[in-house]
């Protein structure tokens, strides 16, 4: 199966570009990332400039998405919000991937007792509702960037670990691994060069889906009051602020939520496209 993937890789890119979903997803992701990266330049107004006389204004020419309870421009805050979401999302995803890959490959490659122990540990994390664990850590220890990213990584690494593990499990008995071992390659070499290289496409696909997931989790935390510090806007924060004005100023809660939805959708589309392109036989597995 893997040799097949090797042989088909050159056309993967072509398959990807022909895959409409993946392209659309990629486009959305790019727009959001650019928005976050270039927020200072793109945002028409300051995200914190208040105008107490201009509170709760509906969308207009001056404020395309209206103003919030402090008279701040919603559009600018939405643009800046992508920065916060992406920052935490990226950090958490990277941590999650690193931990998941490391743990999963060790478990899958060495098997036996190590495998059992690791998988049981993963089960422990999966038996507590994710949000509870995150809530406990973040509420009690403070909602800093590192805290939040770390604990999100803690609850999302297990699925990645599982997938990498099963890949390594199935690959470890292949001929080329035996050959490499016979040639004197150490464990580490076999792991990194052969197994992980083959598991890489799966991991990349997971990354995209994971990013979407972490952004959802982070915005949920913000909604509960455990997110970015004011006046730094986070999408989840904006939605919870807007909830009290739902009847009179619906735009405050609607647009940031829409931003979350579109961003996550983009990452999901992108991930799907990647998966379809990298290996058609993987389609069923994820």
């Amino acid at each position, binding site marked *: 199966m893997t040799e097949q993937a090797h042989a088909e890789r050159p056309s993967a890119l072509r398959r990807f570009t022909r895959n409409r979903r993946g392209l659309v997803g990629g486009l959305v992701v790019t727009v959001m990332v650019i928005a976050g990266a270039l927020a200072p330049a793109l945002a028409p107004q300051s995200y*914190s*400039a*208040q105008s*107490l*006389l201009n*509170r*709760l204004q509906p969308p207009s020419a001056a404020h395309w998405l209206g103003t919030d*309870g*402090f008279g701040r421009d919603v559009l600018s805050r939405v643009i800046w919000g992508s920065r916060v979401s992406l920052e935490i999302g990226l950090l958490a995803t990277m941590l999650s991937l690193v931990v998941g890959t490391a743990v999963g490959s060790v478990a899958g490659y060495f098997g036996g007792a190590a495998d059992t122990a690791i998988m049981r540990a993963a089960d422990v994390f999966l038996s507590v509702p994710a949000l509870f664990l995150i809530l406990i850590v973040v*509420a009690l220890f403070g909602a800093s960037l590192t805290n939040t990213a770390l604990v999100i990584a803690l609850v999302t690494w297990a699925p990645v670990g599982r997938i990498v593990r099963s890949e390594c499990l199935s690959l470890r008995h292949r001929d080329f691994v035996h050959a490499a071992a016979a040639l004197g390659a150490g464990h580490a070499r076999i792991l990194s060069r052969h197994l992980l290289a083959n598991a890489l496409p799966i991991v990349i696909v997971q990354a995209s889906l994971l990013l979407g997931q972490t952004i959802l989790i982070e915005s949920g935390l913000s909604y509960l*009051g455990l997110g970015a*510090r*004011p*006046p730094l806007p986070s999408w989840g924060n904006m939605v919870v602020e807007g*909830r*009290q*004005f*739902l009847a*009179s100023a619906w735009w405050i809660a609607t647009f940031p939520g829409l931003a979350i939805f579109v961003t996550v959708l983009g990452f999901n589309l992108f991930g799907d496209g990647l998966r379809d392109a990298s290996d058609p036989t993987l389609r069923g597995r994820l």
Partner: protein
Amino acid sequence: MIHAIVLALLVATIGLAPSPGLAAGKDFVIGLSGDATSLNPVIATDGQSYIAEWPLFDSLVELDQGLNVRPLLAESWEVSRDGLTYTFKLKRGVKWHDGKPFTARDVAFTFYSVLDPKVTTPHRAYFDALAGFPELTAKENPKRPEELAVRPIEVIDDHTVRFRLRYPSGSFLAVLVNPRAGIVPEHLLKGVDLNTAEFNRKPIGTGPFRLVEWRRGERLVMEANAQYHGGRPALDHLILRIIPDSVVLLQELRAGGVDFVESPPLTEVARLKQTANLKVLAADNTSYTYFGWRQDLAPFTDLRVRRALYHAIDVPSIVREVLQGYAAVSTGQFPPSSWAFDPSVKPYAYDPNRAKALLAEAGFKPGPDGVLVKDGKRFSFSVRHDQANQSVKDTAVIIQEYLKRVGVEVQLEPLDWPTFVKKLFASEFEGIVVGWTNHHDPDPFAYTIWHSSQWKGRNFAHYKNPRVDEALEAARRTGVTAERKKHYAELSKLLMEDAPYVFLYFPQQVYVTRSGYEGFVPIPTFAGIYQSLKSVRWTGK
């Protein structure tokens, strides 16, 4: 598995207890944003418990709208010439909710319990003036009342009780009101550990209402006390529904699920006023909100810096826009409704240019990013506040913006209440925005906040000013109101000169209730309108 689900669904559908039969108009439903923790006036200290205790317990005296003391359980009283002895004659024929008679022994028991160091209660400090206070409340080897030469509380006969003070305190009478001084029954609590008594969940008081049911986290149901010494209340039932979500609370109000809500989000008040069957009540209060900082940290040690911060913030605009006008601009420790208030003290006007000039004088120069710099240090500090208090949150965000305009950078740190209070009292902060409810008598809070001996207490900002100390001590030593007023006027002047805080505003108490209920009398302090629940009635209009 399916069976379990079906069973659970059935249980869920049927299991909820039905609410008591509601008679429209004869019952009054109050929406509370949180549950009470315990219904025992001696130990309860949170706002919701106070609200629930008001209909259930009486105190010796109560306040009227002018904050003057008037009789309640005490019919009359005499004060000795030297101001050290108070003799109360109690009302006759008062009964507890369980039918037993109320006597002076209950009064003595209640206050000895407050003084008992084994009982966890912060109310103790308010009775500092009682004779033998230091001995009774000592941490090591506290004395028992029988061991004292001069007993602070003495039962003369069934209807007479005498208090002895160790110094003439002008605020003593004012302390004998709810919520801190509700009287509890000796016959039910003698020999019981008050901290964990079953009584705290099944209280018996002498108040206008008696508790019928308390479903934790859901509701408290009270019914009228037909034997109430002040006459049976007009309402049949008082129901306190617990709805923690403020948005939902308002929805319930509009839909008819509750009849009364306190402190609605002020941005909604205009809309609520226009709603046909609702009306808005507002009255002055002794709560206050301020923007403060550690007095012993640079650069706040520089008077010019403190005054600059005051000039930088447009308080009247905050009162108008954030609080919709439901607040009074503050000029110090005392609200306009207090007799200690001195109208001649004026706050620093909003003047950002003056602020910038003062900061420049103090040696600050604009840095490369717009934030002021002095001796290589940027003028940037953290401001902590309670994340659950909407007005405080909004105010903090606005202050951050105003300070930014004069080159001062503020990092906001909203904290959850447990962490915030802990850091506050440990003096672990740089700047804070805090809202407290003041006591209606000037002494308790003024002393504990500004006196330099209280650094481990409410003076967590570490303020120290010998002239202020003098004024506070002098005010404490005399029982004559006119004298105290002079000293407090001096205090207000000194504080404004020194500008230790930006005194922001005194928020009013605001309520929304269903039209048709009349008889609310707002008292400008803790009592709010809850003291008048015994006289609220339904007129059906």
